[in-house]
């Protein structure tokens, strides 16, 4: 008798525990729906911080990511490509006007429709920080500005030579992880991104994302502090290393993604295990509120805008012709008081300019 009551009590306790855990899991699933609110547009900032012929692989890295991102839908007007652009027309290039990312030379990632926004000696830390914070001089062309808003998901890809806490820009200057974190915080203060995916393929890359303190950032690096990122293979016909390991495997994954794919960011973050990459891939998820395994990869790499159906139009009659004519004449009279002047050659905004 005693045994039975003991057994019944046990069963009751187990049932209660199951009920409590199911209730708490219901509560845990609410935030995902709440955060489905989502983004409205996608931007990409792709940066190669090194120059010179022996850093061919960095340019190939960035251009391959550029091709993938373009193929998946982000238009050129929303991609900021920052490379030194000294590979394709380099006198040491045995295949002029091309940049390949594979020894079999199947794809020319340079192509004839690449749009480089910051090239040559414009790739400086100052320009990079100005681009991120939005403090560009008035008169900067629209293609060189990051015109994101609070609904934009931004993909930031950096590659080059780095170290513990810094990234080298073109052999003459460095950007520290603290400066980068401050620039991203300035972006957050002005609500210039909705979510950010930060990818970095350099030696000791994980040190660059360690200082971030703004919300909604998911970061991945090709190696942890103290490890070097290694390149993948040499192309004997060109004579230099042609692509880095982490980017090679990341591209392998991206090539199988289509614009309507259901692959998730969680799968992307686990691409390139240690046996393939030799260095350990570092991931920073604590600033990102969603579970990466539930985030579709097209949230950052593709560009699908949300859509609402319009079910009816307004039933309007136009203003009568005479009324319209008189209104336009009145406007013309107001305008014709100004003396004639030349139209601006490059239309720029009046914000911040004299």
């Amino acid at each position: 008798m005693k045994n039975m009551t003991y057994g019944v009590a046990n069963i009751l306790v187990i049932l209660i525990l199951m009920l409590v855990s199911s209730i708490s899991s219901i509560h845990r699933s609410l935030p995902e729906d709440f955060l489905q609110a989502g983004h409205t547009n996608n931007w990409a900032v792709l940066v190669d911080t090194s120059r010179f012929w022996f850093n061919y692989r960095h340019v190939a890295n960035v251009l391959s990511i550029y091709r993938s991102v373009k193929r998946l839908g982000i238009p050129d007007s929303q991609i900021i490509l920052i490379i030194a652009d000294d590979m394709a027309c380099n006198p040491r290039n045995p295949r002029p006007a091309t940049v390949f990312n594979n020894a079999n030379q199947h794809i020319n990632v340079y192509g004839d429709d690449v749009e480089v926004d910051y090239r040559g000696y414009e790739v400086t830390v100052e320009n990079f920080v100005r681009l991120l914070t939005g403090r560009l001089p008035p008169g900067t062309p629209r293609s060189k500005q990051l015109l994101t808003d609070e609904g934009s998901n931004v993909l930031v890809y950096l590659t080059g030579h780095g170290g513990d806490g810094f990234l080298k820009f073109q052999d003459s200057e460095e950007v520290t992880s603290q400066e980068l974190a401050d620039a991203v915080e300035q972006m957050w203060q002005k609500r210039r991104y909705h979510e950010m995916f930060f990818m970095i393929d350099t030696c000791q890359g994980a040190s660059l994302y360690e200082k971030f303190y703004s919300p909604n950032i998911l970061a991945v690096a090709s190696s942890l502090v103290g490890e070097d990122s290694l390149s993948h293979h040499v192309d004997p016909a060109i004579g230099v290393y042609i692509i880095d390991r982490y980017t090679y495997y990341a591209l392998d994954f991206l090539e199988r993604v289509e614009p309507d794919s259901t692959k998730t960011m969680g799968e992307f973050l686990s691409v390139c295990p240690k046996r393939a990459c030799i260095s350990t891939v570092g991931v920073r998820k604590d600033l990102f509120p969603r579970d990466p395994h539930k985030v579709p990869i097209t949230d950052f790499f593709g560009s699908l805008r949300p859509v609402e159906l319009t079910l009816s139009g307004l039933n309007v009659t136009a203003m009568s012709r005479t009324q319209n004519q008189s209104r336009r004449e009145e406007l013309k009279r107001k305008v014709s008081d100004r003396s004639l002047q030349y139209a601006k050659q490059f239309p720029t905004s009046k914000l911040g300019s004299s």
Partner: protein
Amino acid sequence: MALKKEETSDDFAKVEDNNDARRVYAAISFVVVLIVIGLPLWWETTDVYRVPLPYSRIAALDSLDVTLAMNISITTLDAARGDKLIEDLKDILKTSKLFQFTFRALPLEKKHFALAHSPEGLESGSFHPRKSGELFLLEVPGLTRFTPNHVMVGLKRTVYFSSEARQERTTIFPIFFLAAVKLSEVLELLLLREKSLRQMVAAMTTPTETDQDRSGRRRMPAAEEYDIMMTVVNPEPEKLQIDWDLPEAVQDYLEPFLYELSPLAGYTVKSQWLYFVTLNVQPKLVIDTSGFGHQHYALAEDLLPQIITPLEKKLASRVSRNPCLNFVVYIPPCEAAPLHIYTRQGVRVKGGVDAFLSPRWGGIVIHNPSHMVCHNSSVPEPKEYSPDTVAIMGVFLAQLRLLMGIPELEGISRVGQLPLSTVSLRQWEFDSLLRMRTLEQLTSAKLTLQSLSQLLGKISNIVINDAVGNSIYQVVDCVERAAHLLKIGQLDEAFNESKKAFLSAEAAFTDPSLLALLYFPDDQKYAVYIPLFLPVMIPVVMSLKNICAWFSGRMCSKHKLKKE
């Protein structure tokens, strides 16, 4: 002999004294030049030019009380009902955190109803409030003759309600008139939209906790000027020639509407035609089994986002920095016509309008060429077709209203709106837009200021030049003035002040001179100057001790001489 020795030793002592004095005076001059003059001079010349900022006023903005004053006038058939109605409304609306209501009872005048035979006739009366932000509630005795609704919202700032004298018991409060309950619902959900406004402000201040609601996500962000790009896409111009005067359609339908909106922001309208551009999606063929043998093509709702992405590459819509709204008309060729949109449930969209919009981007209309033109085999190609301007521009106007933030009617039972017949806005819609933009610009300016003051306070060596300083002072002044104007009910002036504050705040924040990289951080400053000055300063500082000792020695010996 001994005397001479004494004399020489005395002289020697005096010379020694003089030498000592000269040495000490020389040391004192070094000290004066280096420490007293040099150090402050160095500090002054390496100081960064910073205009003093009103940090305390900026911090006080955080607790700035933003409330909007609303004047509502009421006219009823008899004064007692009017007073009871005012009391009821005050009771229901007293929990409002954003609005301060002032109710007034106006006496009934026969002239209100003299010429009116319908609610539309009442619209031409002269009793409508002219000032932005005011509302007028008018009891119309015979309203139920024209419409089943109890409340009709007019085209100007008036709401008509019927004379239903029935009393209703609500859950919390005792007996209210049915009219009071319905009117408060109309005010909250439609005209004032307090919940939407508060959610917008919360989403801006704490974006990690609150999100914008549906209309907030769809609405274009506040800006000084917008670009509107109208595009006509004709994929096969050799088979179908479109005969449409697009500039005239824009002049007739779009420009009057934009003229009404012009106090809020400037607009630039551009138009273009795109040929040989396809939709890049495969619609499905649906054969009509109802007996007519017509077929049409079905475009699933899930495929719609994939239309926008490749189309955007060709629109070339961004030549200026202003936010751009894109309106695209797609006219399918006869072989692919008619093309209809199917919802996610697999049902064709009712209403004859195949259109969709994308929040903060624009809208796309699919306009099918008419059956007669396509199936007229006697006409050689290219077949000519004139699109229906009224239908297309009607859809664009509906989409433009949603994208600019004009609220759509939520389904409240027994409440209707007078339908729009011209392209202008309803006046209370314009007021609602003014309120929303004012709050948005005020909140944005406040947040920008706070973030800027935090940045400039933390990094003490960023130069704050005069332009930035003036902008910041202007923003603080404008924000305080705008809040004051909102409190006394001057909506138009409050909007203008908030716009100035918003634009100045943006100019100050994005000023290119505010870059920490351009100026030396403190540790670099010391690293440069210490190796230069430290070797010089060490002997000077050490000699201070000797100077003090010498002076105290002199004082002692003088003392001794005096005593003797």
